[in-house]
């Protein structure tokens, strides 16, 4: 393709190929193609000016020029515009249309202009009448009356500017809503990298993007089913709450249908892919978040109700002014100004913009309500593994007891643990693999006791692996004083799991899970942001828990907890009047996550925790908790500041209007203008 360079310095090259040299889709395709080259850092193409901008690695100038030259004008790459760009383009187009229409109106002869204004205003009149007939006194009625009254008093230009500003506000609101939904759907999009597919040559792991309709995919406990399909083998309990809202898992067996976004809670399924997820279901979930009344921030619902409840007072003000002054113009001024529309508009825009901003920080928040709860919380509860730690535990020591060898203990432990998606289990399996200890499957079906451990039968003997509590108290495995001394000495404040075979203690595995680098800093920052109470729940033994709590500056910790206790603990805090944030990641955290005022799941955690949690941290760093706290607090401050400004500014306008100091058209312009500015400001970023 021929081009001329217009900027060529500092590893940045901009060339132009002539106005409209390629289409919108081709521009997108060109940018995509150039951007994927290894020596290119960033590429964009503008279809209007026909220009291509490339930022490249040092020394790659010639390669960039060659790449652009090699583009064939007749066979340019094409790509569908990303949804966000489409939304932007639509907004810009709609805005342009509105403004151009308004400007063109001025050139029309007066009678036609009047006719058009009447036509435009009929829409508002009909809406107002419709609401009135249903005995609703709301903002629509107020808008209709204000427009109608100014039309009747012969004030066409006021009516049309009021309608223009109302239309502009609507457009702005729709656009913000749309952008937020898109940002959210990107964040919530199913993060599935690899799946196990059954092929004639055996089970094979392939990237999810390579899965085709008709493939048979194996989905295990704790994982999200990433497509719609039919079960062809296996039975399991599937949590369909994302689809149906029911919290009880449903039993699925051969022949049943399963849906994208649902989670296998127990068991494993072989599923034939029917349709690959196209994100449409995700879109449904997102609109649910957007519309569902019980996900809305309390302050938002309050604002919407308040907006409508003020309307009768506006009419009262109108009637009083008309009666007292006998001046219709002054009375209409009062009607032109209402508090409700600004509050009603700016509050949801603030909330959804904050959700979008959170999404940009890699945090998916599933409803405005949760931002509000996050700002109000004074207590945070961490489930240690996977949140305060990297969830990347390592087996640091293996202690066999009499009658068993070290390798046997590790091999057997790995053999039992490999069936479950838990970080500690993964650590055991990893250690065995590192040491080259392979094993044959010699045991019967394994039984997974949530948060306790694993039990199975091995060569006719009961084999169990799990926490000290599970082994010594639930299963009553005898512990000699000698062994107790060994355990105390070797465990050295770390967490431990035990293996027992045939009612005899076989070995101990010492597990260390290093605390995240940022954990201590995050906790102290959260304290600075008004969180007064920091708690930690852990399955670890007391010494390990105490050491970590001390290191991180945690107020309350509970060691050796069971999942049922986790939710009990959260409920107890709530009963004491605390507002609780629960941070967890495991399958066993779900009851506690559900019990908290607002729950946070780590991205690296189990799918089911992410499903249940109100907030997901996708960046896998705790520092996002601090960001979210700052963001949510700033949001509440913004809403309240907006509220104060709207009330005082509009009250001022009403007084000025009623006193006859400003005409209705100015009052309308100032009122709607300030509403637009407030709404526009509410869309801006809360954090620097």
């Amino acid at each position, binding site marked *: 393709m021929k081009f001329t360079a*217009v*900027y060529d*310095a*500092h590893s*940045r090259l*901009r060339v*132009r190929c002539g*106005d*409209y040299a390629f289409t919108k889709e081709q521009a997108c395709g060109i940018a995509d193609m150039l951007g994927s080259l290894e020596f290119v850092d960033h590429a964009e193409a*503008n279809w*209007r*000016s*026909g*220009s291509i*901008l490339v930022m490249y690695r040092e020394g790659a100038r010639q390669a960039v020029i060659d790449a652009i030259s090699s583009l064939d004008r007749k066979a340019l790459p094409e790509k569908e515009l990303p949804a966000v760009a489409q939304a932007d383009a639509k907004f810009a187009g709609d805005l342009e249309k509105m403004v151009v229409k308004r400007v063109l109106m001025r050139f029309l002869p007066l009678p036609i202009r009047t006719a058009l204004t009447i036509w435009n205003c009929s829409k508002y009149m009909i809406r107002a009448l419709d609401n009135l007939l249903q005995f609703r006194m709301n903002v629509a009625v107020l808008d209709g009356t204000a427009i109608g009254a100014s039309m009747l008093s012969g004030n066409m230009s006021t009516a049309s500017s009021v309608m223009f500003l109302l239309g502009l506000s609507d457009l702005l609101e729709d656009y913000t809503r749309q952008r937020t939904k898109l940002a959210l759907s990107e964040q919530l999009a199913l993060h599935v990298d690899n799946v196990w597919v059954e092929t004639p040559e055996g089970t094979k792991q392939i990237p999810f993007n390579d899965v085709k309709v008709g493939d048979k995919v194996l989905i295990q406990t704790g994982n999200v089913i990433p497509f719609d399909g039919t079960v062809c083998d296996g039975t399991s309990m599937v949590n369909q709450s994302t689809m149906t809202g029911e919290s009880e898992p449903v039993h699925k067996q051969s022949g049943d249908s399963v849906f994208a976004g649902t989670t296998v809670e127990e068991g494993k399924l072989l599923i034939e892919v029917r349709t690959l997820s196209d994100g449409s279901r995700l879109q449904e979930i997102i609109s649910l978040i957007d519309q569902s009344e019980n996900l809305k921030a309390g302050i938002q619902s309050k604002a919407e109700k308040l907006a409508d409840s003020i309307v009768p007072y506006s009419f009262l003000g109108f009637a009083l002014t008309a009666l007292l002054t006998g001046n219709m113009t002054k009375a209409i001024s009062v009607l032109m100004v209402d508090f409700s529309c600004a509050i009603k508009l700016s509050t949801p825009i603030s909330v959804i913009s904050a959700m979008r901003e959170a999404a940009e920080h890699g945090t998916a928040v599933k409803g405005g309500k949760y931002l509000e709860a996050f700002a109000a919380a004074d207590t945070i509860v961490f489930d240690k593994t996977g949140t305060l730690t990297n969830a990347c535990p390592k087996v640091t020591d293996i202690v066999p007891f009499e009658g068993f060898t070290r390798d046997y203990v590790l091999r057997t432990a790995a053999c039992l643990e490999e069936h479950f998606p838990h970080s500690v289990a993964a650590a055991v399996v990893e250690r065995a693999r590192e040491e080259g200890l392979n094993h044959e499957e010699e045991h019967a079906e394994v039984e997974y006791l949530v948060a306790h451990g694993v039990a199975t039968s091995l060569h006719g003997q009961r084999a169990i692996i799990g926490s000290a509590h599970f082994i010594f108290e639930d299963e009553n495995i005898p512990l000699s004083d000698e062994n107790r001394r060994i355990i105390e000495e070797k465990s050295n404040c770390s967490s431990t799991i035990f293996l027992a075979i045939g009612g005899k203690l076989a070995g101990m595995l010492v597990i260390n899970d290093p605390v995240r680098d940022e954990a201590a800093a995050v906790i102290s920052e959260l304290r600075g942001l008004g969180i007064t109470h920091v708690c930690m729940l852990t399955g670890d033994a007391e010494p390990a828990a105490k050491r970590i709590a001390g290191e991180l500056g945690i107020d309350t910790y509970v060691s050796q907890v069971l999942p049922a206790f986790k939710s009990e603990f959260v409920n107890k805090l709530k009963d004491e009047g605390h507002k609780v944030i629960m941070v967890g990641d495991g399958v066993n955290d779900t009851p506690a996550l559900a019990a908290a005022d607002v729950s946070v799941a780590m991205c690296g955690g189990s799918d089911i925790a992410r499903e249940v949690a109100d907030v997901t941290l996708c960046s896998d760093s705790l520092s996002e908790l601090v960001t979210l706290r700052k963001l949510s607090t700033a949001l509440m401050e913004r809403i309240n500041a907006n509220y104060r400004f709207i009330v005082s500014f509009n009250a001022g306008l009403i007084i000025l209007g009623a006193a006859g100091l400003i005409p209705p058209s100015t009052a309308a312009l100032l009122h709607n203008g300030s509403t637009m500015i407030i709404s526009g400001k509410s869309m801006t970023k809360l954090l620097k």
Partner: protein
Amino acid sequence: MKNVFKNQKVGFFALGVLAATAGVKFLKSDTFHKGCVKVVSGGMKLRNEAAAEVSKIREDAQDELFDKDADNA
């Protein structure tokens, strides 16, 4: 019987009808159609040129800003 054609009002009415018919004819005529197409397409072209120009101005401004920043750095 009155002579209707002598009545002035009727005469004006008839003229009006004629003018309206001619007007509609003109509106439907090829010349008018072509003329309108020309005006609208001219408007569209102008709009596209303006949009491209705005894009170019913005791009050049971005380039200049980048240049300044890069020189200062």
